[in-house]
Protein backbone atom coordinates (compact mmCIF):
# COMPACT_ATOMS: atom_id res chain seq x y z
CA UNK A 1 0.00 0.00 0.00
CA UNK A 2 1.40 3.37 -1.01
CA UNK A 3 2.01 6.34 1.18
CA UNK A 4 -0.80 8.75 1.80
CA UNK A 5 -0.35 12.03 0.01
CA UNK A 6 -1.76 14.16 2.83
CA UNK A 7 -1.27 13.18 6.45
CA UNK A 8 -2.79 15.19 9.27
CA UNK A 9 -1.58 14.63 12.79
CA UNK A 10 -2.58 16.22 16.07
CA UNK A 11 -0.28 15.63 18.98
CA UNK A 12 0.20 16.84 22.54
CA UNK A 13 3.58 17.66 24.00
CA UNK A 14 5.13 17.32 27.42
CA UNK A 15 2.94 18.96 30.08
CA UNK A 16 4.28 21.99 31.94
CA UNK A 17 3.39 22.33 35.64
CA UNK A 18 3.19 25.91 36.89
CA UNK A 19 1.43 27.38 39.92
CA UNK A 20 -0.69 24.27 40.41
CA UNK A 21 -1.77 24.28 36.78
CA UNK A 22 -0.81 21.76 34.17
CA UNK A 23 -0.49 23.07 30.64
CA UNK A 24 -0.58 20.61 27.74
CA UNK A 25 0.60 22.08 24.43
CA UNK A 26 -1.22 20.72 21.38
CA UNK A 27 0.04 21.05 17.82
CA UNK A 28 -1.29 20.02 14.45
CA UNK A 29 0.85 19.10 11.52
CA UNK A 30 0.07 18.50 7.88
CA UNK A 31 2.50 16.48 5.82
CA UNK A 32 2.33 16.31 2.07
CA UNK A 33 4.23 13.41 0.56
CA UNK A 34 5.27 13.86 -3.03
CA UNK A 35 4.10 10.80 -4.94
CA UNK A 36 7.01 9.02 -6.58
CA UNK A 37 9.62 11.25 -4.99
CA UNK A 38 11.60 11.52 -1.80
CA UNK A 39 10.69 14.60 0.12
CA UNK A 40 7.65 16.62 0.81
CA UNK A 41 6.22 19.47 2.82
CA UNK A 42 5.56 19.60 6.55
CA UNK A 43 3.42 22.41 7.95
CA UNK A 44 3.37 22.44 11.70
CA UNK A 45 1.43 24.90 13.79
CA UNK A 46 0.26 25.33 17.37
CA UNK A 47 -3.40 24.48 17.83
CA UNK A 48 -4.29 25.06 21.47
CA UNK A 49 -3.18 24.66 25.04
CA UNK A 50 -5.16 22.54 27.45
CA UNK A 51 -5.07 23.86 31.00
CA UNK A 52 -5.86 21.50 33.82
CA UNK A 53 -6.20 22.82 37.33
CA UNK A 54 -5.79 20.96 40.62
CA UNK A 55 -9.49 19.97 40.60
CA UNK A 56 -9.04 18.25 37.28
CA UNK A 57 -11.09 20.86 35.41
CA UNK A 58 -9.86 21.26 31.88
CA UNK A 59 -9.99 24.38 29.76
CA UNK A 60 -9.01 24.61 26.12
CA UNK A 61 -7.38 27.86 25.00
CA UNK A 62 -7.00 28.10 21.23
CA UNK A 63 -3.81 29.58 19.83
CA UNK A 64 -4.95 32.28 17.42
CA UNK A 65 -2.74 33.21 14.50
CA UNK A 66 -3.42 36.95 14.40
CA UNK A 67 -1.01 37.60 11.53
CA UNK A 68 -2.76 35.05 9.31
CA UNK A 69 -6.21 36.40 10.22
CA UNK A 70 -5.12 39.95 9.33
CA UNK A 71 -3.51 38.80 6.09
CA UNK A 72 -6.66 36.95 5.03
CA UNK A 73 -8.83 39.96 5.96
CA UNK A 74 -6.61 42.41 4.04
CA UNK A 75 -6.33 40.21 0.95
CA UNK A 76 -10.09 39.63 0.98
CA UNK A 77 -10.70 43.37 1.26
CA UNK A 78 -8.25 43.96 -1.58
CA UNK A 79 -9.97 41.39 -3.78
CA UNK A 80 -13.42 42.82 -3.05
CA UNK A 81 -12.11 46.36 -3.63
CA UNK A 82 -10.57 45.35 -6.95
CA UNK A 83 -13.77 43.66 -8.10
CA UNK A 84 -15.92 46.62 -6.98
CA UNK A 85 -13.66 49.05 -8.85
CA UNK A 86 -13.98 46.93 -11.96
CA UNK A 87 -17.75 46.66 -11.64
CA UNK A 88 -18.29 50.39 -10.97
CA UNK A 89 -16.16 51.49 -13.92
CA UNK A 90 -17.68 48.85 -16.16
CA UNK A 91 -21.21 50.04 -15.39
CA UNK A 92 -20.36 53.71 -15.85
CA UNK A 93 -18.57 52.99 -19.11
CA UNK A 94 -21.36 50.99 -20.76
CA UNK A 95 -23.89 53.88 -21.20
CA UNK A 96 -21.14 56.10 -22.64
CA UNK A 97 -20.30 53.46 -25.21
CA UNK A 98 -23.95 53.01 -26.13
CA UNK A 99 -24.38 56.75 -26.78
CA UNK A 100 -21.62 56.61 -29.40
Amino acid sequence: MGKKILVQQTSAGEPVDVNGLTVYPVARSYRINMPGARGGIVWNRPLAVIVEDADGTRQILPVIDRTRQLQIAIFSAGFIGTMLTWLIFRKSRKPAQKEK
Partner: protein
Amino acid sequence: MDKVVKGPGGTGGVDLHQTLDDINSTMESFLETASVDRVYGAPIEVGSTVIIPTAENLVIMGFGAGSGYGSADFENDEGDSPPGEGTGEGGGGGGGGGGRTLSRPVAVVIVSPEGVRVEPVADRTKVIMAAITAVGFVAGMFLRMSRGPRSL
Protein backbone atom coordinates in the same frame (compact mmCIF):
# COMPACT_ATOMS: atom_id res chain seq x y z
CA MET B 1 31.50 -8.31 -33.06
CA ASP B 2 30.63 -9.78 -29.75
CA LYS B 3 29.42 -7.24 -27.26
CA VAL B 4 28.36 -8.22 -23.80
CA VAL B 5 26.73 -5.76 -21.47
CA LYS B 6 26.75 -6.78 -17.89
CA GLY B 7 24.44 -5.66 -15.17
CA PRO B 8 25.52 -3.97 -11.96
CA GLY B 9 28.30 -5.98 -10.42
CA GLY B 10 29.05 -3.91 -7.38
CA THR B 11 32.24 -2.46 -8.80
CA GLY B 12 30.81 0.81 -9.94
CA GLY B 13 32.76 2.89 -7.46
CA VAL B 14 29.71 4.80 -6.26
CA ASP B 15 28.10 3.50 -3.11
CA LEU B 16 24.42 3.91 -3.88
CA HIS B 17 23.42 2.29 -0.60
CA GLN B 18 25.37 4.91 1.33
CA THR B 19 23.65 7.66 -0.65
CA LEU B 20 20.24 6.14 0.03
CA ASP B 21 21.08 5.77 3.73
CA ASP B 22 22.03 9.43 3.87
CA ILE B 23 18.79 10.37 2.17
CA ASN B 24 16.75 8.19 4.51
CA SER B 25 18.41 9.67 7.61
CA THR B 26 17.74 13.17 6.30
CA MET B 27 14.13 12.16 5.59
CA GLU B 28 13.77 10.96 9.18
CA SER B 29 15.03 14.33 10.42
CA PHE B 30 12.57 15.96 8.05
CA LEU B 31 9.66 13.95 9.43
CA GLU B 32 10.69 14.85 12.98
CA THR B 33 9.80 18.44 12.21
CA ALA B 34 6.15 17.41 12.51
CA SER B 35 6.41 17.27 16.28
CA VAL B 36 5.11 19.43 19.10
CA ASP B 37 8.64 20.28 20.25
CA ARG B 38 9.23 22.17 17.03
CA VAL B 39 6.18 24.36 17.66
CA TYR B 40 6.37 25.10 21.38
CA GLY B 41 9.60 26.51 22.71
CA ALA B 42 11.17 25.83 26.08
CA PRO B 43 9.28 27.50 28.94
CA ILE B 44 10.90 30.72 30.17
CA GLU B 45 10.48 31.52 33.86
CA VAL B 46 10.17 35.17 34.84
CA GLY B 47 9.49 35.29 38.56
CA SER B 48 6.25 33.44 39.19
CA THR B 49 5.26 33.70 35.51
CA VAL B 50 6.14 31.19 32.84
CA ILE B 51 6.16 32.13 29.17
CA ILE B 52 5.93 29.49 26.44
CA PRO B 53 6.68 30.81 22.96
CA THR B 54 4.90 29.20 20.03
CA ALA B 55 5.82 29.26 16.36
CA GLU B 56 4.56 27.94 13.08
CA ASN B 57 7.03 26.22 10.84
CA LEU B 58 6.98 25.05 7.28
CA VAL B 59 9.59 22.65 5.95
CA ILE B 60 9.94 21.89 2.26
CA MET B 61 12.38 19.24 1.16
CA GLY B 62 13.13 17.15 -1.87
CA PHE B 63 15.74 14.57 -2.83
CA GLY B 64 16.77 12.57 -5.82
CA ALA B 65 19.40 9.97 -6.51
CA GLY B 66 20.36 7.74 -9.35
CA SER B 67 23.14 5.56 -10.64
CA GLY B 68 24.14 3.65 -13.69
CA TYR B 69 26.61 0.93 -14.53
CA GLY B 70 27.77 -0.56 -17.76
CA SER B 71 30.31 -3.11 -18.85
CA ALA B 72 31.41 -4.41 -22.23
CA ASP B 73 33.83 -7.13 -23.35
CA PHE B 74 35.22 -7.08 -26.91
CA GLU B 75 36.74 -10.24 -28.30
CA ASN B 76 37.84 -10.96 -31.85
CA ASP B 77 36.42 -7.85 -33.38
CA GLU B 78 35.73 -8.27 -37.06
CA GLY B 79 34.92 -5.87 -39.81
CA ASP B 80 36.34 -2.40 -40.22
CA SER B 81 37.73 -2.07 -36.75
CA PRO B 82 41.07 -3.67 -36.01
CA PRO B 83 40.96 -7.02 -34.26
CA GLY B 84 41.67 -7.01 -30.60
CA GLU B 85 40.29 -7.71 -27.30
CA GLY B 86 39.57 -5.64 -24.24
CA THR B 87 37.19 -4.90 -21.53
CA GLY B 88 35.45 -1.79 -20.52
CA GLU B 89 33.29 -0.87 -17.67
CA GLY B 90 31.95 2.24 -16.15
CA GLY B 91 29.62 3.43 -13.55
CA GLY B 92 28.24 6.64 -12.28
CA GLY B 93 25.83 7.95 -9.81
CA GLY B 94 24.73 11.03 -8.10
CA GLY B 95 22.21 12.57 -5.89
CA GLY B 96 20.98 15.91 -4.86
CA GLY B 97 18.50 17.60 -2.70
CA GLY B 98 17.33 20.85 -1.34
CA GLY B 99 15.05 22.24 1.24
CA ARG B 100 13.90 25.25 3.12
CA THR B 101 12.52 25.92 6.56
CA LEU B 102 10.27 28.86 7.26
CA SER B 103 9.37 29.72 10.81
CA ARG B 104 7.54 32.60 12.46
CA PRO B 105 6.16 33.34 15.90
CA VAL B 106 2.42 32.88 16.36
CA ALA B 107 1.70 33.54 20.01
CA VAL B 108 3.00 33.32 23.54
CA VAL B 109 1.35 31.34 26.29
CA ILE B 110 1.59 33.20 29.59
CA VAL B 111 1.06 31.19 32.74
CA SER B 112 0.84 33.53 35.72
CA PRO B 113 -0.69 33.21 39.19
CA GLU B 114 -3.75 34.99 37.75
CA GLY B 115 -4.26 32.22 35.21
CA VAL B 116 -3.29 31.19 31.72
CA ARG B 117 -3.71 33.37 28.66
CA VAL B 118 -2.61 33.15 25.06
CA GLU B 119 -1.33 36.41 23.60
CA PRO B 120 -1.19 36.44 19.80
CA VAL B 121 1.87 37.88 18.08
CA ALA B 122 1.11 40.01 15.03
CA ASP B 123 3.91 40.31 12.50
CA ARG B 124 3.65 43.97 11.46
CA THR B 125 5.90 43.58 8.45
CA LYS B 126 3.75 40.82 6.96
CA VAL B 127 0.56 42.77 7.66
CA ILE B 128 1.95 45.96 6.10
CA MET B 129 3.17 44.02 3.06
CA ALA B 130 -0.29 42.48 2.68
CA ALA B 131 -1.89 45.94 2.90
CA ILE B 132 0.49 47.39 0.30
CA THR B 133 -0.25 44.47 -2.04
CA ALA B 134 -4.01 44.84 -1.60
CA VAL B 135 -3.91 48.63 -2.15
CA GLY B 136 -1.69 48.05 -5.17
CA PHE B 137 -4.25 45.73 -6.74
CA VAL B 138 -7.10 48.19 -6.16
CA ALA B 139 -5.04 51.14 -7.45
CA GLY B 140 -3.94 49.12 -10.47
CA MET B 141 -7.51 48.25 -11.35
CA PHE B 142 -8.61 51.86 -10.80
CA LEU B 143 -5.92 53.21 -13.12
CA ARG B 144 -6.59 50.57 -15.74
CA MET B 145 -10.32 51.24 -15.79
CA SER B 146 -10.07 55.05 -15.58
CA ARG B 147 -7.90 55.19 -18.72
CA GLY B 148 -10.77 54.03 -20.81
CA PRO B 149 -10.77 51.51 -23.65
CA ARG B 150 -7.55 51.29 -25.59
CA SER B 151 -7.66 52.11 -29.26
CA LEU B 152 -5.31 50.47 -31.75
